[in-house]
């Protein structure tokens, strides 16, 4: 684990979970039980998701501010005054939050990068492309032969990753047209094993192994 952020610990305890950055009410919809709530500052509209959070991290605030009081009530760790937390932490980062020390550690993960051809953030399991097979939203499909005819079978996949292809190739444009998050020229992706859990953020051109 790597220490990346420090702030003021205002509620004791330790928690581990995936970062969920909340900036608008729209972000509340995807908030899952056990996520680490990262935001500028909490307010009463967030009470519901605060109840699901494993820990809370805020960019501003002090000992008596809203997140501090609520987290102590809920018995979950909370750190406030963490400068630029919403910028430095990324959606889906696996982090450890230590309320006593006011420290946030990020799990060292394998990270792959490539070129985005259709934006989207998807969590799922790695699946290798097989001709004739159908795929579901939770499947992140690795395809070696990145050609258009193969893409038509991937309409329902969560995301497409390829070690080949460029942003202007036909298949990339088809993926964009079908609105399937897609990254091409991803080096080393072929080494990922079937079933590996990953978080893909194509717009940021990052694939993280959970």
């Amino acid at each position, binding site marked *: 684990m790597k220490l990346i952020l420090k702030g003021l610990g205002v509620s004791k305890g330790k928690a581990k979970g995936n970062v969920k950055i909340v900036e608008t009410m729209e972000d509340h919809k995807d908030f899952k039980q056990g996520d680490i709530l990262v935001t500028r500052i909490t307010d009463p509209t967030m009470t519901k998701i605060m109840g699901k959070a494993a820990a809370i991290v805020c960019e501003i605030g002090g000992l008596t501010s809203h997140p501090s009081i609520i987290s102590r009530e809920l018995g979950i760790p909370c750190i406030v005054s963490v400068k630029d937390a919403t910028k430095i932490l990324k959606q889906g980062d696996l982090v450890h939050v230590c309320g006593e020390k006011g420290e946030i550690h990020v799990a060292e993960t394998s990270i792959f990068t490539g070129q985005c051809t259709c934006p989207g953030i998807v969590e799922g399991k790695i699946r290798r492309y097989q001709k004739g097979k159908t795929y579901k939203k939770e499947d992140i499909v690795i395809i070696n032969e990145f050609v258009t005819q193969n893409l038509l079978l991937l309409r329902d996949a969560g995301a497409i990753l390829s070690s080949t292809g460029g942003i202007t*190739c*036909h298949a990339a444009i088809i993926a964009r047209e079908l609105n399937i998050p897609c990254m091409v020229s991803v080096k080393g992706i072929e080494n990922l094993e079937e079933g590996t859990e990953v978080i893909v953020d194509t717009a940021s051109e990052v694939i993280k192994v959970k």
Partner: protein
Amino acid sequence: MRTINKDQIRSFKTNVRPEHKNNTILEIKLDNKIFWCERPLYNFTKFDQSLCYANSKDEGKWLFNTETILFFDQLGRAWFQEELTSKYLLNFYLKNPVMYLNFAAKRVNDIKKVISLMKEVNKTVYSDNKETIIANLKKMKLCYDIFYSHMGSIFWVFDDIVHKFKETLLKFLDKAEANTYLCEFLTAEITKEALKLGVVEEYDNTDRGSSYGSDKPIIFHREPKIFVESKLDAQIFSKAASAPEEVRKNFFALRLIMPAALQINEEAQYIESKMLSGHIKVIMKKVCKLLNKTKQEIDNMTYKEVIEELK
């Protein structure tokens, strides 16, 4: 055809296309002029050289009012004078984005003519009547003349325009915002139509002769959008406004031309590989039969020689 000495050729890689997508460019200096071969893996037959490239040299005249030279070497590779290379055209269009829009407007009309001509051919494409076959071949020649009259602007510079747009966006936006915005424009009207009809399959990319694509003579079309709007425009424009002058200038030039360039390039790829290829393949099979020659024998003739023999 011009025989060139391979020892005089300089080879380098472009970073706008991945390795497996033919990213080597060749350069040679002949008669004090620089020539580039942008697709060294594409070898054109004598027939295809005369069918497809007759009008390509006129692009320089249209853009800069100067004669430009192109030639084929002993391997059938196409070499274009410096003014029609991707590097030169990118710089030219960055300084003159309105010229790209002039070209795009002309292209829309050109393609209307090509589609209209192909529709005429399509009515009798399976005919075995000699006169009809000759008439169809002549109409297809007209299609190719119009279709390949702007090789540099449609094919050579396209990847560079998209790459430069991304590079420019990254100078004033973070990666996620730059990619999200770029992807707003990685879309083309003709792709929607091709998907609707289920005709998106790709072909071997090392062969780009007149018959490299489909053998089904189909026609489909949807006019490209030259001006593509994005819901993100307002926020990106406001960030661009505070970018350094050079970045801002490039951004606005590329914002104008990149979406159109993608639409025009995609349109060209589908017309080339599905429609032109589909029709010419059927016609040339009939020509081979009429002249009692193999395809290889026809490939070693010019278009004019084929027409003469047919008469």
